[in-house]
């Protein structure tokens, strides 16, 4: 490398076969399910499987975007790296799940089509993941709830009839275990810290708790092709109770956030926050359609 500017020097470097120049142009291997068998197993409805993958993929994509917002804003560099790492895991899961959705419904839509070119009401994520980050305690409380529930769901989905969904879930369950450990460690540190840190952690939990119930509320698609999330309520609440007891925090007793005539995130009915998040997520792809680098 001779030039001061890394990208300029890359474009001038020897491209083949092992020169650094190859880094400048991408690899051409962009498919997160490269060469994986894409057939939908007999007995599974492709449209239902696609809708289900979209729900789980949108959860992961939107929370990934929220976590990455902590870059440059976290209390310590290590936390910034950690939160970005969690976001990266979720982004990887989202890429596989969205790609699977585009295969299963026969539309051939890619992960990018689905991430960048759907409107707010077409997103199927739960409202828990779209809520703004709030303070660090709120973000940790949200992460604790999500990672506990999603880890349990992935464990249950590891035996799913669709081999792609089963593989994503089996991989994801181990990743979510790390996320839950991270959120648990901070919940203990803040809850069992000073009176002020405990008060802030409790406030974060109280504020996020109304969004928990939606994770246990089944959409018809989930009942047809996935795991009934209501079966996760008891084990997830038991696990959360154990963490809160250890941290000296109270389990909030608040009703779930109201729905619109029974419709919520899984039906495309979101809070106003999702539109703002998507505007930032999608602006570049929409300003330069089809652009590559």
């Amino acid at each position, binding site marked *: 490398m001779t030039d001061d500017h890394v990208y300029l020097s890359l474009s001038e470097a020897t491209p083949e076969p092992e020169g650094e120049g190859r880094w400048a142009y*991408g*690899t051409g291997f962009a498919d997160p399910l*490269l060469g994986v068998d894409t057939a939908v197993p007999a007995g599974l409805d492709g449209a239902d499987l696609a809708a289900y993958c979209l729900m789980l993929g949108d959860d992961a994509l939107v929370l990934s975007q929220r976590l990455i917002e902590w870059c440059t804003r976290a209390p310590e560099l290590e936390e910034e790296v950690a939160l970005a*790492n*969690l976001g990266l895991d979720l982004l990887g899961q989202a890429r596989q799940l969205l790609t699977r959705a585009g295969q299963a419904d026969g539309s051939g839509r890619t992960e990018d089509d689905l991430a960048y070119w759907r409107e707010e009401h077409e997103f199927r994520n739960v409202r828990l993941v779209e809520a703004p980050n709030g303070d660090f305690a709120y973000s940790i409380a949200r992460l604790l709830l999500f990672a506990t529930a999603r880890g349990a769901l992935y464990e249950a989905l590891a035996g799913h009839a669709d081999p792609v969904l089963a*593989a994503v879930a*089996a*991989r994801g369950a181990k990743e979510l275990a790390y996320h839950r450990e991270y959120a648990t460690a901070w919940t*203990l540190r803040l809850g069992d810290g000073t009176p002020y840190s405990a008060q802030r952690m409790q406030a974060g939990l109280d504020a996020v708790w109304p969004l928990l119930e939606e994770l246990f509320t089944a959409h018809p698609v989930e009942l047809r092709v996935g795991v009934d999330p209501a079966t996760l309520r008891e084990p997830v609440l038991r696990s959360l109770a154990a*963490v809160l007891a250890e941290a000296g925090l109270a389990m909030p007793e608040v009703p779930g956030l109201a729905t619109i005539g029974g419709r919520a995130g899984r039906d495309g009915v979101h809070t106003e926050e999702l539109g703002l998040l998507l505007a930032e997520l999608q602006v570049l792809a929409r300003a330069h359609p089809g652009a590559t680098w």
Partner: protein
Amino acid sequence: MVTGTATARERAWAVAAEVPDPELPMLTLADLGVLAEVEVEAAGAVPTATAEAPVAPAEAAVTAWLTPTYSGCPAVAEMAADVDRRLRAAGYADVRVRLRLDPAWSTDLITAEGRRKLAEAGIAPPRSAAERAAPAASGGASPRGTAPPLLTLGPTRHLVACPLCGGTDTEELSRFGSTACKALWRCRDCREPFERVKEI
């Protein structure tokens, strides 16, 4: 299985197995356990290989399967491109690289040689499956099923030796390091920070 084909497969494996990992370049993809399988067939449908006349690379179709480490590992595309490039450079004309998601990658797949190379490079290797099964290992085994695994609420208890001085008075600074697969540790004996490959 025709002997000639097996030889061709071993030769193709040897080429793909030499590809270094982009983020842990002291390891090959085979050391890391990312290279799952390599298959060689005669190009076209006509089986020409015999024990006397093994398939020549230029006439062989090679398929290499990779198992990604983490869902979001950004190096997967680069690994696939590197394997493709190395096989073509070795004379194979028909090369396919595929991902295999099941079974999921685990640090148990890192070879003994891979663990040795990591330690030599100053990165603490993860424990092997046998080491983790030892009675001294920490708890936290997760029963399969719908119930979330039992939590270990205390700090991690198992011993991680410093790869620089061999000291055992070490502590985890952050579970998340410079890449998805590494955590940040420090040694209180020699006062040096070091990285450790996370067990998963």
